[in-house]
């Protein structure tokens, strides 16, 4: 297990290889469908993603502005953000994208170019995800996007995942998919 601590510097992120198990500690921000469309449409990115992590997640959060608590926080499907992610990586300087299912070749190319990796969190493992969130430090765009799509500021401890796309052009999902198609053809 490789320990990653915020801020995630370019060298340590570029040293990661597809298949590495990682454990993430520090600040991460959630952002999903509405967030990506908003940024692509020219909206101002509400937080600083430089050397940071973006988590494709729509959590269950309870409480109010006096104090929030994440009770369920697993990943959502990343593929929907494919049209927006390469530009977001370039614009924001983000180093880790956490989600499920992986992303496309254009995103992989942007990861290679700007030094970013994709971390697969376990889909559906929402209780474990929430347990790793030690503090909800804040939230942005709550009124605009709603609770399931807002940009939540999570301080996490030992949030675990597997590097599925690295900055050297390897994409585990694409490899598995290609192999499965070959096997299907042989059945």
């Amino acid at each position, binding site marked *: 297990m490789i320990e990653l601590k915020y801020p995630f510097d370019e060298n340590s992120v570029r040293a990661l290889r597809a*298949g590495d*198990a990682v454990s993430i500690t520090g600040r991460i921000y959630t952002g999903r469908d509405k967030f990506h469309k908003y940024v692509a449409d020219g909206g101002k990115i509400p937080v600083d993603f430089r050397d940071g992590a973006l988590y494709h*997640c*729509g*959590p*269950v*959060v*309870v409480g109010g502005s006096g104090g929030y608590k994440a*009770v*369920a*926080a*697993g990943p*959502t*499907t990343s*593929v929907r953000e494919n049209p927006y992610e390469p530009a977001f990586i370039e614009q924001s300087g983000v180093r880790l994208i956490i989600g*499920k*299912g*992986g992303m496309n070749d254009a995103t992989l190319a942007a990861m290679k170019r700007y030094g970013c990796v994709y971390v*697969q969190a*376990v*889909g*559906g*493992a*929402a*209780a*474990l*995800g*929430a*347990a790793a969130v030690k503090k909800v430090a804040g939230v942005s765009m709550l009124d605009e996007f*709603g*609770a*399931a799509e807002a940009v939540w500021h999570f301080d996490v401890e030992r949030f*675990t995942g*597997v590097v*599925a796309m690295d900055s050297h052009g390897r994409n*585990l*999902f694409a*490899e*598995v*998919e290609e*192999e*499965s*198609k070959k*096997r*299907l053809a042989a*059945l």
Partner: protein
Amino acid sequence: MRTVDDIVRLIRETSTSLPDDVERALRSAVRREAKGSSAAIVLKTVLDNVKLARNCGLPLCQDTGTLTFFVSSSLRSKVTPERIRKAVAIATEKGLLRKNTIDSVSGKSYDDNCADGAPLVHYVEGGRSVTLVMKGGGSENMSRQYSLPDSAVGAGRDMEGVRKCLLDAVVNAQGYGCAPGVLGVCIGGDRATGFEVAKEQLLRNLGDVAEDAELRKMEKRVLREANSLGIGPMGLGGKTTILGVKIASRPRVPASFFVTVAYMCWALRRRTMEFA
């Protein structure tokens, strides 16, 4: 009020506690995967998550999904749509359900998860029970309907064609639907019946087999072949891609031959509560 409390309890148990048969299937899957592999790590994480959710009363997946209630018609006057909505609103307030219901035109959130058509309530024949199924969007997006013949899949209008569709659905889903998943399948029917019946198959226990010998054979074969594709848990490779295949058939008209696949994630949340 007691009925509302009972329904809240049903929602709590469904959202926080994976059914025994699914958990058992995941446990035996871990034993099949190579030690230290991505597949084993993912499955272990899933099982840890299931345990934590149950012990702490937390939603085991944050996508608490589309809520579908199947209510025995004998309970129609007791378990009313109004009481179900009341219970859903309470469960949402308690954090057992995510604010997960969006107006398709305005994009606004129905913050109590109640709207015209949400939750879904079906009154069904027989028994005195209420069954709740929670199906997440990631898996729903992987559901498919084929119209045979389908030249892209190479599927003709026979059982061999059906088999090709089912394996195509698995390859298409990869890990996106949160594999290892379960396939609920309907052969035939019209388009709407196809999805309805395919989804109903997800209510069957994983140990259950089709009564019809031909369907039983197909369930077994597709399960074996799907797990030979190497897709694995969450699509990171491995031997466990599908936990079960449940097939039913309905008559069709000569012009139509639909094969409908309802893909369900490992977080197969279904639970039945018996009413006295």
